[in-house]
């Protein structure tokens, strides 16, 4: 069976220990976490968690079942299997901005619709939002200028509404 990347959307009770329980489940049972994003929802008693993992069908089935078994987990959706969805990730990239390559950085930012959110005499901080591929592309292009630091958020995802009326 082939391994595939899956994005899971998980609603959990906003209680201390809930996140530790989920992280512990993954490490204890040898599942992978590629990225994890957690934040409150409109209902402050629930937290939303977007989790990217990979594995074959049997492993993904186990991961979802094991998550649902946790007393604190309210809902698990495998976004990857639910049709069309939007995925976003954000990165802050501190890149060396010497005179000779400032133009180039501007150009890249324009093409990829990035923002420059901090400017210092020798470096810029670039904010980029998009899916994983876009982020990778921007990072690849900025590398030659000299990247000093990168911070990434991990993926968040949302199902698209049906287009037909």
């Amino acid at each position: 069976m082939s391994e595939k990347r899956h994005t899971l959307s998980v609603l959990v009770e906003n209680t201390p220990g809930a996140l530790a329980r989920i992280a512990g489940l993954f490490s204890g049972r040898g599942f992978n976490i590629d990225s994890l994003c957690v934040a409150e929802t409109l209902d402050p008693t629930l937290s939303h968690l977007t989790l990217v993992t990979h594995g074959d069908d049997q492993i993904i089935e186990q991961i979802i079942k094991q998550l649902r078994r946790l007393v604190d987990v309210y809902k698990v959706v495998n976004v990857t299997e639910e049709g069309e969805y939007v995925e976003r990730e954000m990165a802050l990239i501190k890149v060396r901005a010497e005179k000779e390559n400032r133009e180039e950085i501007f150009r890249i930012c324009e093409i990829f619709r990035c923002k420059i959110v901090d400017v210092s005499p020798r470096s810029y901080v670039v904010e980029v939002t998009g899916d994983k591929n876009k982020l990778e592309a921007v990072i690849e292009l900025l590398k030659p200028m000299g990247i000093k630091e990168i911070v990434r958020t991990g993926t968040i995802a949302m199902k698209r509404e049906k287009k037909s009326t």
Partner: protein
Amino acid sequence: MTGAKMIVEALKKEGVEVIFGYPGGAVIDIYDELYKTPEIKHVLVRHEQGAAHAADGYARSTGKVGVALVTSGPGATNTVTGIATAYMDSIPIVVLTGQVPTKLIGNDAFQEVDITGITRPITKHNFLVKKIEDLPKILKAAFYIAKTGRPGPVLVDLPKDIQQAKGEFNYPEEIKLRSYNPVYEPHIKQIEKAYTLLEQAERPVLMLGGGVIASNASEEAVKLAEKLNLPVVMTLMGLGAFPGEHYQALGMLGMHGTYYANMAVANCDVLLAVGARFDDRVTGKVDAFAPGAKIIHIDIDPTSIQKNVKVDVPIVADCKRALTRLLEVTKLVGRPKKYWKERFKDWWEQIDIWKKRYPLSYKEDPNYIKPQFVIEKLYELTKGEAIVATEVGQNQMWTALFYKFKYPRTLITSGGLGTMGFGFPASIGAQMGNPEKLVIDIAGDGSIQMNIQELATAMEQKLPIKIIILNNGYLGMVRQWQELFYGKRYSAVKFNVLPDFVKLAEAYGAVGIRITRPEEVEPTLKKILSMNTLVILDVHIAPEEGVFPMVPAGKATTEMILV
């Protein structure tokens, strides 16, 4: 009302009659309330591990929730093995631990430990109470979670200031948790599919696990097996779910299963597994497990299904309800018993050949007491009416094979975790829950020493438990592996010093008897079974006796080493 009083009131509301515990600084307030509450019997153990196992043995033997109460820090960590044991076997217990005051949590205070952190992977759920307002609801939830769905241990950590705080005690009559909704009713389409598979079967097998006992579904399992003329195999945790001496019972399957149970499973074309989780000790090499069979799997826990073996008809449901529905469908179709008798006649002929070829047996020896003989005699003399706890290792397997458990909840054994030192404290819990019954602990000379301190607890409670030590002076199961697979290199399995178990019994005020000759077995067993006191019977058995049949780890279950 103080938090401590709320805790005791909650125990009363939950119908708790007995708890097992050990006091300490962080639970003095609760003990002060217990002092004023004679309705709740407190059993003072000698080590907190004993409290957890005793609560577990109480739960296994009665079907009620077992309760343990211990202090913070080391008191709490000492229960960890007991909690893990209950978790692996899905036993409903509630463990109440004291904790340092909330403002000291995280300070490395005296006797502070993060017990909710430590027990997170071995509890069904756990709670740290941070506000007195939450206390009643959390206690209600703890009992509710422990006993519903797939049962399991729940731990509630109780900081000292919460026990002393005052609040209003509104104990909810019922509780609903939005994120926890166990499924009990099976999908009827799946039940119909299961029935159709059984109709098409030529060589069916019914496999019963601990879930049948947990859901009190033995009656339904027997009805279905008898109606459809199904051969029945049981996992270690399932023993007692179906009467061991019934002509359709093939005994235990797996690593130390009977020849005919393993052959039947390996050759069946439909396997109906109920409340079992296909643990490696059951399946052996997974690819060779029931290779030609369509598998129907009934379990209340969806994670158990498709975890280890591929299942054709998954049924997520309470075992009792699923079997009830399956019986209803069977009745609706209305084939007579005679039809099923005829239908599986050839299959039964084959099974009878296997049974005759390698019946469960052992070699007799006039010079040595054979452990299997002890268990056989014990079964005969107790007529299968005793509650039998075991330790872990050879003693456990000999008991599983040679004591033909008649009723559910009469075998008390650590199946999943395999905890040495479990049997004796568990039998204390079983005896507390079943004062009128005969309770026996089958032990090894290794295991019994792991919680021997509980002799004082049992004597204090005047419990007439019979401890039968199958004493071979070895850690016998490891020795057996070393003999078979490690070139007889007996590394660290020989006890050069063993206590004199007779004197040890006497030191605690109990009766101790030693036997070394086969002819002493029957009269001595008769004698101790009639005594109304705690007895340690130290039986010196053939030192290098093995447990057979045996499937070497990782091999197919048909590759058995026989006697």
